[in-house]
């Protein structure tokens, strides 16, 4: 059952369209990420759901409640939507203690003092902030501040919690911990969450479903596996992972495969969508799918090694194909020379 439904949402700033007809839903207990490059409209969509931006067309429902409907001229102000919102900057009120920050939503809902104290204590404990209630935000570390912001959004049990780039203000090490913590918390508490992020690995790690936005539209949505493993467009393929990319022309199509040719090379791949000989296409393959082979048989090319980089858990090798650089992973260092690279045809997507 959908906790949150967005239908055909349009929004513009002045003459500049930001959202161009976005529809989505969020089921109970589900974590959905809004992913996309900056300017794709993901934050705007989140803010429109929260009631902080006014779309000019479309509808938003929370559960059964219509909170926005342009056709019916309904717009519930932010404070009546009963959502939890965690800001990128956390937006903790600097003049209130941690306790008061968290308790504010309960005070607004006229929860009796004693009960409020209990609920705040509970949520602070859940988030590992137990003893920090009397502190002021500036006395906390970044990670603690983030957890206060989450506590503040959770304390009044909103049906949906919205998180705007929740991890981007943390440093790299803390970010991985927080990511796991957040995922674990959401699952444990059975929350329905909408998370905005620009980092695809964060999106994959945290969410049940990903909506990839591009230029005000949803480019593709699906589970992390679908998004990573079977992108439907070049944009999705490029956004979701690290790839090698070759430009060429389709030479022949046979048995659901197509052969693509470039200058001095030719490979079999899997076309995504309609294709026909003579068409200009991009061949894309995830770096980790490229394998070093020992001979010419199979879907292989012989290329000169230009350099190797040590990444700690593996090596990355750079090969040259004309002006294009191709990358492959390996377990050890390679001597200079030419090597056979294998491109499994079902992993080489043609767009």
């Amino acid at each position, binding site marked *: 059952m959908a906790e949150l439904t967005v239908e055909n949402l349009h929004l513009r700033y002045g003459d500049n369209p930001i959202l161009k007809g976005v529809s989505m839903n969020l089921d109970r207990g589900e974590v959905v990420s809004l992913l996309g490059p900056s300017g794709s409209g993901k934050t705007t969509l989140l803010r429109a759901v929260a009631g*902080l931006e006014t779309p000019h067309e479309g509808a938003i429902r929370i559960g059964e409640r219509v909170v926005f409907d342009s056709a019916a001229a309904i717009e519930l*102000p932010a*404070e009546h939507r009963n959502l939890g919102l965690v800001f990128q900057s956390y*937006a903790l*009120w600097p003049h209130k203690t941690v306790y008061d920050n968290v308790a504010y*939503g309960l005070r607004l809902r006229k929860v009796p003092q004693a009960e409020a104290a209990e609920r705040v204590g509970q949520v602070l404990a859940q988030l590992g902030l137990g003893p920090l209630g009397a502190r002021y935000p500036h006395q906390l570390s970044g990670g603690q501040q983030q957890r206060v912001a989450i506590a*503040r959004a959770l304390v009044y049990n909103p049906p949906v919690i919205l998180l705007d780039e929740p991890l981007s203000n943390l440093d790299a090490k803390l970010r991985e911990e927080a990511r796991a913590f957040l995922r674990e918390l959401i699952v444990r508490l059975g929350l329905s969450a909408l998370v905005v992020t620009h980092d695809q690995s964060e999106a994959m790690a945290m969410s049940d479903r990903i909506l990839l936005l591009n230029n005000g539209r949803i480019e593709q949505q699906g589970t992390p596996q679908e998004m990573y493993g079977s992108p439907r467009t070049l944009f999705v393929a490029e956004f979701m992972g690290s790839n090698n990319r070759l430009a060429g022309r389709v030479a022949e199509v046979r048995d659901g495969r197509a052969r693509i040719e470039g200058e001095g090379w030719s490979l079999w791949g899997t076309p995504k969508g309609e294709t026909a000989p003579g068409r200009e296409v991009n061949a894309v393959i995830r770096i980790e799918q490229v394998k070093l082979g020992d001979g010419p048989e199979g879907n292989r090319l012989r290329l000169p090694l230009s350099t190797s980089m040590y990444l700690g858990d593996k090596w990355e090798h750079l090969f040259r194909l004309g002006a294009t650089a191709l990358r492959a992973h390996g377990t050890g260092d390679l001597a200079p020379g030419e090597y056979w690279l294998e491109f499994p045809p079902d992993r080489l997507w043609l767009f």
Partner: protein
Amino acid sequence: MRASAAETLPRAFTILVTATAVLAPLSLILYQSLLNAPFFDARKAIGLDAYRFIFADPDFWQAFKNSGLIAGGMTLIAVPLGGLLAFVMERTDLSGRGWIEPLLLVPSFVSPMVLSFGYVVAAGPVGFYSVWSRELFGGAPWGIYSILAMTVIAGLTHVPNVYVYASAALKNLGSDVEEAARVAGASPFRVAFSVSLPLIMPSLLFSGVLVFFLGFELFGLPLVLGDPEGILVLSTYLFKLTNKLGTPSYHLMAAVAVCIVAVTFPLVLLQRQLLKGSRKYASIKGKSGRMRELPLGGWKWLAGGVIGAWIFVSVLVPLSGIALRAFVTNWGEGVRLAEVLTLDNFRSVWEEPTMMRGIWNTILIGVVGGLLTVACYTAIGFATHRRNDGWSRFVDYLVLVPRAVPGLLAGLAFLWVFLFFPPLRPLRSTLFSGWLAYSVVWLAYGMRLISSSLLQVSPELEEAARSAGAPRWRVSRDVTLPLIRYGLLGSWLLVFMIFEREYSTAVYLLAPGTEVIGAQLVSLWQGGAIDLVAALSLVNVVLVAVGLGIALRFGVRLRD
């Protein structure tokens, strides 16, 4: 889309009250300018006679030209200097900033008439400094009775008006942009002119427009320094019109005021046009981070020199003139100061209960009235805060206009409003009426202080409260207001200072027991008791300065 009535009503009410308070006297003035007699006179008739008269009067055009020159010139002096002072005070490591700051504000609370008189005593043809200079160097190569001198003095004494806004804006500017320029090889002043000041352009433009308005409204200064040479400006021309035809000619005065508004108002439009849609300055808000002071290095001598020179010319010279005058019976060419020293002037002030009462009343109006005013400005600020609709723009335009009307006529217009608008009649002879008049004419000054405080509050802090379920008024009460409280305290102090010297606006609304020092100074001046004027002014300056010092000491910051 619709919003709930509980949301819109208080806002609509605030805007309505503001609009009425501003437009009622203004429309009365406009109406009066289209008549040929006082509007309450049964013999009045509608016509353009008033405009015909002033347009045919060469004095009007002369005054107009002079006002334009002075207003323009003083803006050109005050804005760069004010911006630079703000930069040095706010962003650099110059030592002694703590005690310089109260000094920077002195010209803003001393009555301009008294300040100008200070210049006469100090640097006039037979002033103390002029006489000394002639004895020591054989000449005093300056004159204070010229358009140029008036422009320079007006420009220098209006520096605080720019300084206040510029320093508030600089507070908001992250220091990273300046450091970037520094690393690229710019000297501190290069940084100021090429990075910091351009980035606070909205504040500078606003203060520029305000100073220009104040330039047209200038009265005390041209009265004291322009009169001897017969240099007329619009407000002294207006003053002349009260008696030129025997009985006060309200229609002529009103026509002049309408002309001033007509000339100055386009500036507001221009200012908005220049800033329209420019997201260039928006970058200011995002990054706050830790503020680091820019080391001045060897430039500190130059910075210190500029500040020192400014303080000397615009604070020490006039104040020392007033101070000296307060301690002598007479002065001038051929007078040995040692022979004329006296404390009688202070004794007279002390013995005269109304004078001390005047000082206390003024301070009281400044303190209590200023607090109320800041409260009202804050309400108006909230009515337009983060709402970029037509009403907010309307209020933006509205607030600047009253300051374009010279105090002489504004005071009269307020009297008319209180007399001829029946619901207000009972309030006429209460302090409320005077307070309202002050608050209306200084709207532009105060509103900008409030709104710059409001803009310092990150929008997310307010949005966070809204999504937690707080309606707008609770967001304002629980989040925004506590966050800007230091800014409001500072605004209170600044509003107190301008109220301290204001009087002409309320002269018709004051009653016995509520006499303010400004009015007393003028009537003493009229009767020739200039020794008492000097002593009274000095006592007043000292009291306010001490109060200011105490306030700053107890943690009231001028800017947040």
